[in-house]
């Protein structure tokens, strides 16, 4: 069964198609109601376009044109290809949680031997179990955002992770999204992570493709609640295939004295958008969010962050670096709001883009909305090419042009990668950078 969600010229979806897909979407009752409401919200705009302010630089009607049919559950061959891809990307020592074509695959995941206080369920189970068991945050992402709404309407699976009070996980968790279907299809996933009080965890999200995929669409979302005095370290690596689409959203809420350290690196996908809302709900909490885009060819990558300082005494740091070659396009939109009560907020954002070719493009859109007077806030943004005098100095010492560039690029992104606390994960980000640099030699 093929589902056409938005194939007409305006990119608007057709309700009939959703009705058709419905039979395959898990959950009844409240879940079905939430899906309908979300789909209605999506339908009001359809695929977002440049006349919607938030999507000015990432016009999905032009870039994506349509929402592809829902992927079928992976067959044996697809799982085999996925297994090979996972092998290359799985992090040593991490607990792999693998979704293939939007379906959780226990066989490829490490589901046994859970540390005490850690529970992992599949989203499908949660959706199908009945209303009483539904986590409160499941449909909390805001349907005003059309791609969030579409995701809410269509989610098929994901992982639902709960970490009990006082439990600090030793083993990092790695959610691996693998696209494996050889057809042009879309997957819709959502994962939830709830950290109780005094808890801690490290979460890695990897987006990869098996051999033989064609221009698939990964529509993902992550809902995170970090309890009081808890800490989450988070790394996202978008290494989707070069013709794919990755549209992901995250909603993160922090309690008091909580900490969230997040780092994202996008080197894959033809078109990607990561939109994250981070909200402070308790005082004395801190967030570090850092990102790197490594783009070439005709890649388009958009990171849109919304930092919501609703309460006093919280600090946030955003450091974003984009390296853009060929005709690629990097977008960073960072909005910080400091609400009236949020005295003593300390919020800073620094974005820098490095353009390696004349046709490369970077858009930085910082927005500060401050409704409180006793705060320290600031942002800075620069866009430029590599410094010719540095390049010449290095070449005069014997470094070929690309190698000299590589050292300068590593230094440039190093400012963001340096924020990753976990040594292994930081090495992973450095290695990903090196792979990218070697590919352009």
């Amino acid at each position, binding site marked *: 069964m093929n589902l056409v969600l938005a194939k007409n010229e305006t990119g608007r979806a057709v309700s009939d198609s959703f009705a058709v897909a419905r039979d395959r979407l898990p959950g009844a009752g409240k879940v079905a109601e939430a899906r309908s409401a979300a789909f209605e919200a999506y339908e009001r705009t359809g695929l977002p376009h440049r006349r919607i302010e938030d999507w000015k630089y990432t016009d999905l009607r032009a870039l994506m044109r349509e929402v592809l049919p829902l992927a079928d559950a992976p067959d044996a061959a697809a799982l085999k290809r996925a297994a090979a891809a996972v092998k290359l990307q799985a992090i040593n020592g991490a607990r792999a949680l693998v979704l293939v074509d939007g379906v959780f695959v226990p066989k490829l995941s490490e589901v046994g031997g859970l540390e005490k206080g850690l529970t992992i369920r599949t989203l499908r189970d949660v959706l199908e179990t009945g209303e009483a068991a539904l986590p409160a945050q499941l449909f909390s992402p805001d349907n005003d955002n059309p791609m969030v709404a579409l995701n809410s309407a269509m989610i098929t699976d994901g992982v639902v992770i709960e970490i009990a009070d006082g439990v600090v996980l030793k083993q990092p968790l790695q959610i691996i999204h693998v696209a494996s279907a050889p057809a042009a299809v879309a997957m819709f996933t959502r994962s939830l992570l709830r950290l109780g009080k005094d808890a801690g965890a490290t979460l890695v999200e990897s987006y990869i493709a098996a051999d033989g995929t064609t221009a698939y669409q990964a529509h993902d979302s992550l809902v995170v609640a970090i309890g009081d005095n808890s800490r989450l370290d988070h790394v996202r690596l978008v290494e989707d295939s070069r013709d794919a689409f990755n549209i992901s959203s995250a909603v993160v809420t922090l309690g008091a004295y909580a900490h969230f350290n997040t780092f994202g690196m996008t080197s894959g996908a033809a078109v990607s958008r990561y939109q994250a809302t981070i909200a402070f709900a308790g005082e004395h909490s801190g967030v570090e969010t850092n990102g790197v885009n490594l783009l070439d060819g005709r890649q388009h990558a958009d990171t849109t962050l919304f930092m919501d300082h609703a309460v006093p005494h919280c600090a946030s740091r955003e450091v974003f670096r984009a390296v853009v070659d060929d005709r690629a396009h990097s977008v960073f939109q960072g909005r910080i709001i400091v609400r009236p009560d949020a005295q003593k907020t300390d919020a800073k954002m620094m974005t820098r883009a490095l353009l390696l070719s004349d046709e490369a493009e970077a858009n930085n859109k910082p927005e500060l909305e401050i409704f409180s007077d006793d705060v320290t806030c600031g942002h800075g943004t620069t866009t430029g090419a590599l*410094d*010719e*005098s*540095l390049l*010449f*100095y*290095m*070449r*005069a*010492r*014997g*470094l*070929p*042009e690309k*190698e*000299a560039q590589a*050292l*300068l690029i*590593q*230094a*440039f992104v*190093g*400012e963001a990668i340096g924020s990753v606390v976990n040594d292994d994960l930081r090495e992973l980000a450095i290695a990903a950078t090196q792979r990218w640099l070697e590919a352009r030699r």
Partner: protein
Amino acid sequence: MTALLEMKDLKVRVEDNEILHGLTLTVNPGEVHAIMGPNGSGKSTLSHVIAGKPGYEVTDGQILFRGEDLLEMEPDERAAKGLFLAFQYPVEIPGVTTWNFLHTALNAQRKARGESQLSSPEFLKKVREVAKSLNIPQDMLKRGVNVGFSGGEKKRNEILQMALFEPAVCILDEMDSGLDIDALRIAADGVNALRSPDRAMVVITHYQRLLNYIIPDFVHVMSKGRVVKSGGKDLALELEASGYTQFEDAA
């Protein structure tokens, strides 16, 4: 005997201004040449053109390195072939440690010459020896290239690189500026240690004092983009006494 470096009637323009108006100079193996001359006479321009800095247009003449056309080579090829320029104003490279930079550069040169790569321990041993001989503290190697270095430290880092790369032709553009008396002597000792029958040095300086430490075989006076007088080491003493005015008229 082939000359190591030959400039023949070299004319160079920068942004529509001719800076070198027909410069001729021959440097043979084993020789040390000093170039002196007033500010703006084109000394650094000459050194940049030799090293291959973009932005300079050679409108006439040639530069030969061991008889090969140097102007046809990329800057990194020139370095790998044994050309070294100690910059008048070394740049700062934040985020790239001196250690990593030198290791990568040395291995790039060796690779271009078809030599084996130095492992980290091999490199460490080599760079430590060189740093020690030049009285350069180890922790300078851990810092970003020239980042936060004092003027004198930057110059010492240039000499360190020269000693490490063991080039055939060393061009030192005002290596004495910014060095205190002790540092000057140590740096000059470093340069002298590299003097050999197959190697040549071109020492650009404003001060005769440096030439007490690095004793040149030839001294050239540059003025307005040309070599206007050449002589032995005594020419430097003469200049110290009489200044450049006489040559400005001649040029």
